[in-house]
C-alpha cells in the first residue's frame, strides 16, 4: 500500500531520473524538474475541445495540401506545376523507392495518422467512451511525434522556391497555402494536446 501512494504522488524526471513530489497545477502552468530543468508536464486550458477543433481542421486541409499544385514554373512558353502527390509519383516513376517511401511517410502518412489519433482520443474522452484500445492509440501518438516532418517539407518548398526564382518565372498555387494552414494545425495539435491529463483520465476511467 505504501508503494502505491508513493507511485501516485511522485514523479520521476524523464531526462535525469530525479524523484520529485508531483505538483498540482492550475490551468496554464508548467512543471519543471528541479534538478535539470527539463519539462515534466503542463496543464493546458480547454485542451480536449481545442484539440478536436484543430485536428478536424488539419484533416480537412490534408486533401488540398496533397492534391493541389504547390508551385509551378514557366519558361519559353512551357509550363509545369507539381503537387505533393506529384512529387511522390515522380520519385516512384524514376525508381527512387527509398525516398518516395520516406517522403510519403514523413509528410502524408505519419502526420495524418497522428491527427486522426489525436481526434479519436480527444473525442472519446469528451463523450465519455473510454476503451482499453485507446491506450494503443495514445502510445502510437507518442511514437509518431518525432517522425512528423510537415514543417521541414514546407522549409524545403521555400528553399526550392528561392533556387527556382533565378531559373524561371514562378507561380504559387493553392497547395502552398493549404500546406501553410496544415502546418499550423499540425503544430497546434502538439500545443493544445494535454498528454499528462489524458493519461491520468485514461487511468482513472479504466480502473473503474
Amino acid at each position: 500500500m505504501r508503494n502505491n501512494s508513493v507511485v501516485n504522488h511522485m514523479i520521476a524526471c524523464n531526462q535525469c531520473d530525479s524523484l520529485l513530489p508531483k505538483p498540482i497545477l492550475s490551468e496554464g502552468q508548467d512543471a519543471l524538474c528541479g534538478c535539470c530543468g527539463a519539462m515534466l508536464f503542463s496543464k493546458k486550458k480547454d485542451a480536449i475541445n481545442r484539440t478536436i477543433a484543430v485536428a478536424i481542421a488539419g484533416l480537412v486541409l490534408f486533401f488540398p495540401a496533397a492534391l493541389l499544385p504547390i508551385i509551378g514554373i514557366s519558361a519559353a512558353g512551357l509550363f509545369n506545376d507539381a503537387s505533393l502527390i506529384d512529387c511522390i509519383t515522380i520519385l516512384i516513376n524514376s525508381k527512387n523507392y527509398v525516398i518516395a517511401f520516406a517522403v510519403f511517410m514523413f509528410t502524408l502518412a505519419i502526420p495524418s495518422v497522428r491527427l486522426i489519433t489525436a481526434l479519436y482520443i480527444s473525442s472519446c474522452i469528451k463523450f465519455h467512451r473510454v476503451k482499453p484500445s485507446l491506450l494503443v492509440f495514445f502510445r502510437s501518438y507518442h511514437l509518431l511525434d518525432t517522425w512528423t516532418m510537415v514543417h521541414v517539407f514546407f522549409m524545403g518548398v521555400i528553399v526550392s522556391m528561392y533556387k527556382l526564382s533565378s531559373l524561371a518565372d514562378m507561380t504559387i498555387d493553392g497547395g502552398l497555402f493549404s500546406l501553410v494552414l496544415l502546418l499550423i494545425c499540425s503544430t497546434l495539435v502538439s500545443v493544445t494536446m494535454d498528454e499528462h491529463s489524458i493519461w491520468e483520465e485514461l487511468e482513472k476511467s479504466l480502473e473503474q
Partner: protein
Amino acid sequence: MSNKALAAGLGNCPQCHKLNVMHAEKQACSRCLTVFSTRKPKSLEYTLAWTIAALVMFIPANIYPMMVFYTLGKPDASTILEGIAIFIQMGMLPVAIIIFIASFVVPLSKIMGLFTLMYNAKRKTKLTLKQQDKLYHVVEFLGPWSMLDVFVVTVMAAVVNLGFLTSIEVASGITYFTLMVVFTIFAAESFDPRLLWDNHQKHHHRATKTNQEYNNKGEQ
C-alpha cells in the same frame, strides 16, 4: 543528489511518464502497458551501431550526385559539394553557405555529437552536465531538419520538368542521404540521456568514495 528513481526501485515509463514500482528488470507499465526497463537496454550499443551506419552512409551520399540537371538534353550531374562550388562561382554566396551548413556541416556535426555523447556517458570528461544536456537536445532537435535537402531535391525534380528544355532528375546520392538521416534519428532515439546523469553521479560518488551502493548493484 542521490535522489534518483532507480535507487528507490522505481522506474519511469518512457511513453506515458507514469512512475512504476519495478518488480523486474523489464516489465509492463501499470497505466499504458508499454514494456520498458529503468534504462533503455543496451542503449549505448544501439546508438553506436546506428551512428556508425550513418557515418558509412555519409560517404556515398557525398560521392554520388544528388541530382542531374538537363539543359537542352545535356545532362549535368552534381554532388553536394559540387553544387556548392557552382553556387560560389555564380556569386550566390549566401545560398552556398546555407546549403553547405544544412547538408554538410549539420549531418557531420550530428554524427560527431552522437559520438561525444556516447563518450560522455561512459567516461569522465571536461564537459559540464549542462553542456552535455544541451548537446543532447541539439542532436535531438536537428533530427528531422536534416531531411530538408531531400525535400528540396524532391520538389525541384517534380517542378522542373519542362521536357527537352530543362528538367531535373533525382540521382542516387539522395537515397544514401535519406538513409543517413533516418539512421541518425534512430541513433538519437536509442540514446538514453539518463546515462549522462548516472555517469556524472558515479564519478562524483567515486570522488567522495561512497560508491558502495553502485558496487552492490553491479554484483547483483
